[in-house]
């Protein structure tokens, strides 16, 4: 009986999983179609065809299998569009510092919020949360003034610094630190450990799953940023890939799928790498001694 339940549960989950995976399958399979095939398949998007002119049954169809395998999209993107690879690097040089910086800065601050007592703690934390929920348009003009005053306009620092200090990491890691029983910290204190030592040798290892999840989510969020580079980086040369891709449907639909597939690759790889950290968990008892 149990095995039957387990199998049916797996089958059900498998069906849902297919639905979840569909867009990726679609993107990857379409990336092996020729530009002509794509133009033909999806020409009707947003169009109103004349019924009397005989187009009444014209519909757009989902197509997963290419007529014939073509690597032209990839060669077009990678070889004939040198700017693509360049923007790829731009993105990496923006995202990696943000992740490194934020994990460091946020884990320190999160410790203070989660495990230390000080006046105005909850009030300050509330302010952190508030700013996080602000739509970017609201703070855009003040941000512009500040970035300009700091002389950061048109440099990647104008994206990296705000990225490092966003409240997201603080909030997330604070929540994960709650899981750590205070008795651990007390025990360490009795052993004569200072707060930095506690932070370094107890807290950080214990929130491993949280940090791994944070890295993945930060990567996804910042890899996809569009608005900030648009305003703060005037040189298209310095702009990240996300900006290029956000408009690709209008300009170059024919290569959009290959570009998208390449665009997702780092996120997928990072997730697969980080996954083991937050799905395998950590044995508290192993560290206690």
């Amino acid at each position, binding site marked *: 009986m149990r095995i039957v339940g387990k199998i049916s549960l797996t089958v059900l989950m498998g069906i849902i999983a297919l639905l979840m995976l569909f867009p990726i399958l679609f*993107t990857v399979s379409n990336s092996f179609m020729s530009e002509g095939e794509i133009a033909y398949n999806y020409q009707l998007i947003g169009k109103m065809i004349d019924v009397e002119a005989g187009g009444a049954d014209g519909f*757009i169809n989902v197509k997963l299998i290419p007529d014939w395998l073509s690597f032209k999209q990839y060669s077009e993107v990678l070889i004939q569009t040198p700017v693509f690879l360049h923007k790829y690097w731009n993105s990496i040089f923006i995202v990696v510092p943000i992740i490194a910086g934020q994990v460091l800065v946020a884990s320190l601050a999160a410790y203070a919020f989660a495990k230390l007592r000080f006046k105005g*703690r909850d009030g300050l934390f509330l302010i952190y949360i508030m700013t996080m929920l602000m739509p970017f*348009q*609201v703070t*855009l003009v003040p941000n512009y003034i500040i970035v300009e005053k700091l002389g950061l306009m048109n440099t990647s620092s104008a994206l990296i610094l705000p990225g490092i200090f*966003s409240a997201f990491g603080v909030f997330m890691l604070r929540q994960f630190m709650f899981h750590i029983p205070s008795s651990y910290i007390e025990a360490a204190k009795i052993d004569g450990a200072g707060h930095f030592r506690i932070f370094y040798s107890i807290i950080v290892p214990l929130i491993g799953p949280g940090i791994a999840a944070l890295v993945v989510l930060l990567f996804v969020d910042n890899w996809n940023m569009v608005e900030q580079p648009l305003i703060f980086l005037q040189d298209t040369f310095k702009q990240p890939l996300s900006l290029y891709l956000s408009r690709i449907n209008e300009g170059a639909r024919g290569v959009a799928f290959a*570009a998208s597939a390449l665009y997702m690759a780092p996120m997928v790889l990072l997730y697969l790498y980080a996954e083991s950290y937050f799905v395998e968990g950590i044995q*508290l008892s192993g560290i206690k001694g």
Partner: protein
Amino acid sequence: MATRIWKKGVKVIRRDSAIALLFLAPSLVGFALFYFIPFVMGFFYSLQDNVVDGSFVGVDNYKELLESSSFRKAINNTLLFTGVSVPLIIALSLLLALILNQKIFFRKGLQTAFVMPLVVPIASIVMIWQILFDWNGTLNKWLQDMSIDRIDWMKSDWSMGVLIFVYVWKNIGYNIILFLAGLQSIPSDYYETADIEGAGRFPKLLHITMVYLTPTTFFVTLMSILNSFKVFRETYLIAGDYPYDRIYMLQHYMNNMFMSLDIQKLTAAATLMVAGILLLVSAMLYVERRFRQFID
């Protein structure tokens, strides 16, 4: 005796404050500069009549804002959308995370599959959205094959449903990651103790898992609200700045205000929105404090 404890308490707090400041310092500096100051400046804009050389006008902008029927529509739609989609996505993602945290076949592969929508770039989402929900889209073809009239998915009340579907699909992986990490952070000792005491599966779920997942749930709830604002980007690319009025959200309103340089109404709208969320967050912080007392 009582004073001694009190004095000791003060000492602990004071020492903690100094240390806390050390831990907080790097974050505070950058946060103030890039988030808090702009936030305050934004609030001041909402009380002025013009960004450049404006003068103080009190709540005029708020009055004007509340008189706008489009703004009220945006609030209604946002409340409806958030009110339906956030509880839905939390329930679904928690359920899926709990299942995925068990010993089922292909667990790892399934986990990966559920998280993947997160990485799909917006260009692909928009494309698939159009293919499926366009007037000439695949769904309408199926309807026609079944001799049912076409539905104008994005330009009728269906559009809200489509939006909720896309939102849940896109963000469920986000929440699953968080819930999985949260589940893994629950010390297994607790379950072992419970096992020794002979607790059943359901009591364990209720008294250990759900309780210890409270901070994560708090976080997931807020992130879900935040992500629910982000659906705007896709909607915008599909339906433009003035979509069918059922899916016209606060984000549309704010974006349009920005494009027409009306920073006053934009910041006033944002302030009202924050006030609304503030209530919700305060309530959640209260629950969390209870939880913290429980843990200690």
